[in-house]
C-alpha cells in the first residue's frame, strides 16, 4: 500500500462502531422528545412555555444567538486563516465548515420554533419592513446558509472524487453517490482553476457576511431602547463573542473526532497549540468588550440600568453571570497562557468551558433585560418578573442542540473530516505516487 493509499484509508469516512451508533441513537431520542414537545407547543400555543408579556424572548432566542455565534467559526478559521496564510489550518477547516453549516441551519430552525404561529412564517417576507433589523436577520440567515454550504462544498469536490474511486469495488452504491456529488471531478487544470477561484471568492465573502450576520444579530437588541441592550458596543461585542464561541466549539469537536477516528498523526499537538493561541487571543479581545459593556454603565447608567446590572452582578442572575465570565472566559485565558495548558486535553476541557460559558452568556444577554421592561405594566403577576424555561422549552432546545450535533455526526460519517487531496498535496504524496505509477 502506497503512502497515498494509506492516507486515503486513514481519512476516508468509516462506518460507526458501537459507540458511534449509541451516540447517534441518543441524539435521535433527544430529537424525538423535542419534536413531541414542539407538536404540543404548536397545538396548545406558547402558553406551554414560561414566556409571558415580559420575558417574550427566552431560551429559544438565546439559543438562536448561540447558534449564530457558533456559525462564525467558518469565517473565523477558514477565511481569516486562509487570508493570513496560516497553513496549519488544513486539518481543521473541514470540521469548522461542517460546524458552521450545522449551526446556521439550526439557527434558522430555532427562529421558527420561537414563532407563536409558525404557519405565518411567510408574513416575515410579505410584510417585511426594510428598516427592521428583524428583516435584515430574515435576509442574512438564508444567505449565510447558502454561503456556508458553498464554503463546505467547493473544497469537497476533489475529496468526493477520491472517495468515488476508493469505494468503487468495496461499496459501489456509495461510490455512485460520491461520483454524482463530485460533479465529474477529474482534477483537470480548468476544474482546478474554477474551483480555486471560487474558493477565493467564498473566503473573501465569508468574512463580511459573517460580520454582517453577527452585527445584525446584535442590532436586533441594540436598536431597541432597552436597558442592557441599548449600546453602540453591541455589534463588535457580539462579533468578538462569536469568535470565542465558534473556536470553543471547533476545539471541542476537533478533539472528539481526533480521538474517535484516531487522527493523532494528522491533528497534532501543534494544531491544538495553534488553536489554543487563537482562542486565547479572541478571549482577550472579548474580555475587553465585556469590560466596555459592563464597566461604562457603572459610571453613567440611569437607575434602571443600575438595577439591571445589580441583578447580574449580585442578584438573581449572579450565578450564571459569574459562571459565564469566570468559567467561560477568565479561567480559559489563565489556562491557555501556559504552554502545558495548550496541550490537547486541557485545550479540550477549555473548549467545553468556553462553549458552556458562551451558551449561558447568551441567556443572560437576552433574559434579564426583558424582565426590566421599557414600559412596565401595572399590576402584573409576580411570576412575570422572573423567567426560567419550562420543560417544553428545555426539551425543544435540547432537540435543536442534538439536531446540530446529529448534522455534524452525519457529515463526519459520510464525508472526510480532513481534506484528503490537500493533505496529500501538502505532503507531496501525489507527485510521489504518480512517479511510482509511471
Amino acid at each position, binding site marked *: 500500500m502506497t503512502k497515498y493509499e494509506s492516507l486515503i484509508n486513514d481519512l476516508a469516512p468509516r462506518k460507526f462502531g458501537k459507540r458511534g451508533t449509541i451516540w447517534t441513537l441518543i441524539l435521535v431520542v433527544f430529537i424525538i422528545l423535542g419534536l413531541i414537545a414542539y407538536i404540543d407547543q404548536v397545538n396548545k400555543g406558547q402558553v406551554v412555555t414560561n414566556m409571558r408579556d415580559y420575558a417574550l424572548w427566552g431560551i429559544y432566542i438565546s439559543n438562536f444567538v448561540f447558534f449564530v455565534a457558533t456559525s462564525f467559526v467558518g469565517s473565523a478559521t477558514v477565511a481569516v486563516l486562509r487570508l493570513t496564510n496560516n497553513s496549519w489550518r488544513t486539518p481543521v477547516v473541514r470540521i469548522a465548515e461542517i460546524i458552521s453549516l450545522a449551526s446556521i441551519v439550526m439557527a434558522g430552525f430555532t427562529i421558527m420554533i420561537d414563532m407563536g404561529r409558525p404557519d405565518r412564517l411567510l408574513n416575515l417576507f410579505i*410584510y*417585511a*419592513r*426594510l*428598516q427592521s433589523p428583524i428583516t*435584515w436577520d430574515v*435576509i442574512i440567515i438564508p*444567505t449565510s446558509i*447558502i*454561503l456556508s454550504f*458553498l464554503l463546505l*462544498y*467547493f473544497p469537497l*469536490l476533489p475529496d468526493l472524487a477520491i472517495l468515488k474511486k476508493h469505494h468503487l469495488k468495496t461499496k459501489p452504491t456509495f461510490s455512485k453517490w460520491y461520483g454524482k456529488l463530485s*460533479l*465529474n*471531478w*477529474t482534477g*483537470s487544470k*480548468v*476544474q482546478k482553476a*474554477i*474551483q480555486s*477561484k*471560487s474558493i477565493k*471568492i*467564498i473566503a473573501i*465573502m465569508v468574512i463580511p*457576511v459573517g460580520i*454582517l450576520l453577527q452585527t445584525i444579530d446584535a442590532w436586533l437588541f441594540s436598536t431597541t431602547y432597552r436597558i442592557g441592550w441599548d449600546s453602540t458596543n453591541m455589534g463588535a461585542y457580539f462579533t468578538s463573542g462569536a469568535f470565542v464561541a465558534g473556536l470553543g466549539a471547533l476545539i471541542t469537536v476537533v478533539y472528539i473526532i481526533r480521538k474517535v477516528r484516531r487522527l493523532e498523526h494528522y491533528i497534532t499537538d501543534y494544531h491544538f497549540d495553534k488553536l489554543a493561541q487563537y482562542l486565547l487571543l479572541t478571549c482577550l479581545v472579548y474580555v475587553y468588550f465585556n469590560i466596555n459593556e459592563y464597566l461604562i454603565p457603572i459610571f453613567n447608567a440611569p437607575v434602571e440600568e443600575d438595577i439591571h446590572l445589580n441583578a447580574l452582578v449580585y442578584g438573581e442572575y449572579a450565578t450564571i453571570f459569574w459562571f459565564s465570565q469566570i468559567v467561560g472566559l477568565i479561567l480559559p485565558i489563565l489556562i491557555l497562557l501556559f504552554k502545558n495548558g495548550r496541550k490537547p486535553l486541557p485545550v479540550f476541557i477549555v473548549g467545553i468551558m468556553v462553549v458552556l460559558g458562551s451558551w449561558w452568556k447568551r441567556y443572560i444577554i437576552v433574559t434579564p433585560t426583558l424582565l426590566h421592561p421599557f414600559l412596565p405594566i401595572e*399590576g402584573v403577576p409576580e411570576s412575570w418578573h422572573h423567567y426560567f424555561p419550562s420543560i417544553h422549552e428545555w426539551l425543544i432546545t435540547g432537540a435543536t442542540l442534538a439536531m446540530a450535533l446529529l448534522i455534524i455526526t452525519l457529515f463526519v460519517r459520510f464525508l472526510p473530516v480532513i481534506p484528503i487531496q490537500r493533505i496529500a498535496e501538502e505532503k507531496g504524496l501525489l507527485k510521489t505516487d504518480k512517479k511510482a505509477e509511471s
Partner: protein
Amino acid sequence: MKNRSTSGSAFLAWTIGFLFCLGLSNIYAQNDEKYRVRLRADYVKIMEGDAYLNIKATAKIEDETLPVPNIDIAVYNEVEDEEIILGNTKTNMKGESRFVLNKSMDLKSDSTNTYNLGISFNGNDSFRKASKSTSFKNAHIVANLIAKDSINYLTATLRETATDSLLAGESLIIQVQRLFNPLKIGEEFNFTDENGTILVPIEEGIPGVDGNLIIEVVLDDSDDYGTVISIVNAPVGTPIVEEITFDQRKMWSARNKTPIFLLVFINLIIAVIYGLFIYLISNLFRISKN
C-alpha cells in the same frame, strides 16, 4: 406512680386537643369573617355635558385599605320615604364606578330643592352589606372669555338653578386641562362676589395645541352642590411647537417610508451577494461539464 403517668398522659392529650380546637376555631373564624365595605358617592355635573355619581368602594383588610372590585351597587333616588331605583352598576378593578344620571331618570327633589341619592351594596360571601347617601342642590356655572385692555379674562357666574339665585362667597377653581394634572391659574381661592361672579386674568404664554386652551371652572366638592364644572374653549394660548422628531425618523415608520439610502444600500448588498452566488453555482455547472 401509675396514676401519675395516666393523669400526665390525659393532661397532654387534653392540651393537644385544646390547642387543635383553638387552631381550628381560628381557621373557621377567619373564613367566617366578613369585611365591611366603605362606600363613597360624589356628585359631579359638567355643564352642557353629563351629570354622574363617582362611586368608590373600599374595605379595610388586615390594616390595609384596599379597593373592592366587581361588586354590584344599586343607585336610587330618595323621595320622602320612597326609594326609586335608578339603576345598577359594578365596580371596576380599582373599586370605582361612574353612574351617569340621565335626564330620562327624572330625578326628584325634596321641598328644599335638594336631591337625595343613595347607593347600596347587598353584601356577598366576603363583604357585609353597606349603603351611603349623598345630597345636592342643582347649581350651574356660566363661564365666558372676555378681553379688556388687551388682557384676556375668564368670567364665571354661579347660580342655584331652582331659585335662579346668585351664589356669593363660593370658591371656584380655574384650571387649564392637561394630560395628567390640570394647571391652575388665577388666585388660590377665587371667591364669587355679591353677583356670584369671579373675574380671573389669563396670563399670556400658556401653551396649548394650536393655541387653544381648554379652561375649566370648577366648584369643587361643595357640601351643598357637589362638583360643578364648566368648560370654556379659549383660543388665547401659545401654540405648541412640536419638537418630536418621531415622524421624521423613517427607521421607525411604515415600509412605504423606507429611506432611499436604505433601499439602495440593502438591495445593493443583496444584489452583489446573490450575484456572486449565481456566479459560484454556475461555476459548479462549469466544473461538472469539464
